[in-house]
Each structure stands twice: as C-alpha cells, then as structure tokens.
C-alpha cells in the first residue's frame, strides 16, 4: 500500500499545484462522457442500447463524426453529435476509450 500512497500524493500534488493541459482535457472528457452515461452504461453492461465500451478511440471518433454528418441512422445520436465540436468529439472519444479497459 505504501508505494501506492506515495504515487497518489505525487499525482495529487500535480493536480493541486496547476491544472495541466492534460488534466483539463481529461476533465472535459469526463464531463462530456457524463452525457453518454444517461443512455450507455460506462461499465459496459446493459442491453438494448449499443455499448460504447471497448471500441477504441478511433472507432468512437468516427462513429460520432458519422452521426453528426447524417440523421439517417439514428436521430438521437445525430442531435447529440451535432452539438459537439471537433475538439469535444476528440476529447470524449479519448476519455470513453479508457473506460472499462481493465476488466476485473
């Protein structure tokens, strides 16, 4: 436990001292992913709504770009994707791609 605690302090200090660009990006990703969680379980469970866990960053990005471009496949995802900028799509895809990647 000791080494974990020590690295935790180190991580915490970085957070406390300055909000680095990477942290801010992760925060934005987390906030955007909260929107996904209203319909998609971020633990990868559930049925009826396609899972977004385990897809990888590129597939998620491409899917969001495709949903943004066309209403035809799903008007709910079209409305969601239309509200996202390129930067936001990149940020949420990166964040979601990291979720559930270490199954217990």
């Amino acid at each position, binding site marked *: 436990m000791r080494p*974990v*605690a020590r690295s*935790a*302090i180190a*991580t*915490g*200090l970085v*957070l*406390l001292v300055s*909000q680095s660009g990477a942290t*801010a990006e992760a*925060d*934005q990703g*987390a*906030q*955007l992913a*909260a*929107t996904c*969680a*209203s*319909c*998609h*379980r971020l*633990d990868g*469970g*559930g*049925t*009826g*709504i396609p899972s977004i866990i385990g897809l990888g960053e590129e597939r998620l990005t491409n899917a969001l770009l495709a949903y943004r471009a066309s*209403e035809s496949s799903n*008007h*709910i995802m*079209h*409305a*969601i994707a*239309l*509200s*996202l900028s390129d930067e936001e799509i990149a940020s949420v895809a990166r964040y979601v791609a990291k979720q559930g990647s*270490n199954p*217990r």
Partner: protein
Amino acid sequence: MKSWTRREFGRLTGAALLTALNQPKARGQAKARVVVVGGGIGGATVAKYLASSATAVDVTLVEPRQSYTTCFFSNLYLAGLRPFESLGHGYEALARQYGITVIHESAAAIHPAAKTVALNNGSKLSYDRLVVAPGITFRDRALEGYDDAAMEIMPHAWNAGPQSKLLRRQLESMEDGGLFLIVVPPDPFRCPPAPYERASLVASYCQHSKPKAKILILDAKDKFNAQDVFQDAWNRHYPGMIEWLPAQFTGGVTAVDPKTRSVITAGATFKAAVTNVVPAQMAGRLAQQAGLTDQSGWCPVDPVTFESALQPGIHLVGDAIIGGDMPKSAFCANSQAKACAFAIAADLAGSARFPAHLFNTCYTYLAPDDAFSNAISFKPVDGKLKSVISFVSKVEESSEVRRQAARAAEGWYDAFTHDVFG
C-alpha cells in the same frame, strides 16, 4: 493483491493529500459541504456527480423515502407490462460506493442567511452550497372538488407509487365496456407526452382484457406534441377506442364530482368507470416556502449554473425549474443535474468550467412493440435555455424502427437508472 479501482485510488489521493499537507485548501474549508434536498432523478444525479467529481466535496442527500419509484415506465406497470417492483430504486449504492451521506428525513425549512437546512426530526444541516430538487406539487383549488379525498377515488398517478397501484387496481376491476377517462392539465406539467402514452397503453391492455372499453381524454390544450404520431398509432392499433377532446371542444374541465366519478366541463358532464385526473402543477412545496418560486409558481434559475435567480448560493434542478424550452422530464432533470454538479465542483475548486451540453431524449410507447423517440439539445441564450436542435420520430417510420425503439427504451431504462442511482 487487491486491484485498485479508479475511484478507490481517487479517494486515497484525497485522503493522503489532506494528511500530507494538513492545511486548508485554497478556498477556506478543507472540504466543501454540499447538501442536496430531494432524492428524485435531479437530486440523486447531482449528489452522485458531485461525490464522484475530482473536487473533494462532502455530499449529503436528504430524502424521506427509502426508495424512489420512477414515473417513467410507470405507464407500462399500469398496462400490466412491468412489475411494480421493477420501478423501485434504493439509495444504498450512492451511500456505499460514492460515500454520500443519505438522510431519510424531510426538510422542514431552508435558512439561506444562516446557510442551514432544518429537518423534520429537529436537526440542522449546515452547507456551503445547497441544491434543491423539490419536484412538483399540485396547485390547490385548480379544479373544484379535487382534494386529497378525491385523489383516493379519482387517482392522479402522477407521482409513481401508491397512486399508480390504485389506478392499476381500478383499471383491472373495470367492467368490459367501461369508460377510462383521463383529464390532462394545462402546460407546463411533468412529462408532456405521458397522458397520451398512458391512453395508448391502457388501450393496449383493454384490447386483450376488455375489448369493448373506451378511453376518453379531456385536454386543457388544443394540441399536443407528436400529435400526428400518436393519432396515427391510435388508428392503427386501437381503431375507435381512444377519443381525444381538446379544450376548444369542451370549454375545459372546471370541476370534478368524486361521488359520481364525474368530470364537469363548461358544456357537459362526463361520467366514467375509472377517472384519472392529472391536476395542474407547480414547483414542490419546499421551493414555495423558501422563496425560490416566482409568480408563475416555478423556480427561475441561471441556465449555466442552475443557481436560483432569487436566492444566491441555492441551486435548483429538475421539474421545479422554468426558464426556457426544457420540458419537465427525468432526462432533462438528469442533464441539468450534471451541468449543475460540474458548475459547483469547478466553482469550489476554482478551476475552469467547460460549456455544458443539455439534452432531452425520450422514448414513448404507443404499443408494447411500438415506441417513438425524440431528441432535443439546448443552449443558454440570453439567460434562457433555448432548444437548438430537435428531432422527433415521423408517422411514416417503419414498424421495424419502432420495434427497435421499444427494445432500446428497455435498455435506456436500465442504463439511465444505473446512471442516477449507481
């Protein structure tokens, strides 16, 4: 060896930091105290997202009930398509996994100057920030004769729970050929498509169990959302069973008579076997008492932080708020709650705030295997929440698309309640 989850690691980071530094954080107290009053969809979501944010916050959730019964999907219970128990969600995961202090008590009063909430058991909670999610209450004397006693005879079933069970019992014991009457209130009210979904699913139940039954809707409005989609489905699934009368036809409902289960309009009296009266609504009582409502009876808020426009330091989310195009739905409450939680967390930490994304998505059942959906996104514009993008299912959608939506709705319920209650 134990594998560390992200959350445990995060908690340890916080605890270790406090021990290591042993000094107050940038803004006064070591840990800000946020009290959330109301454990419905909005309140539970705020509590969960604040408790799991990167900012160290002590979160207390005040909710008298031990478990929450969702209004959404309660029409499926009414039609016998879902057990009542499947609508119930406890607060154990929020307490255990997210470290939220859950107090099962009613809030008696809010004292904004002292920054305290008084509970019915006589205790007091101090807060740095307060979030109030009081839901709705019914307007007194909006409908002559509709009092607490009348609700036991002509149920509203607009707060899911005992009222839903009462209406279900009345529907089950109704004789074949009986009339099921739904009184729809004026806007705004909780879940705008729900009266028409209720009519659809009651018809679906009657089609099998009481094929000669009729459903009559007496509306306070002259039109309703997705009217073409509903009326197309009524003609396809239940020809001749559902009749909808707009206010311009009846002159509007003015009174009820519980003794005869009748509904009185300007021009006629309607007597039914089962009468479901949905009364006119306003923000929950605590919001009225705490001076959080304006003359409309609803709570005006800042559309970015959801801070009350009337009482600084108090935030509001969910059905109780007004200020734009967001309908009163569980999805909107959840969406507002996240925006509110992130805004409070950023403020407490003194960190940057990202633009919030606010949505409403809704699945509505027309029949057990026929559902339609809509999706709307909102943005703060000139102090109001404006609808910017809106899509809704069309009449000509294929039955396969509708079947898929009905299946997706089930999956949505599971994911959504997991998002709110853990």
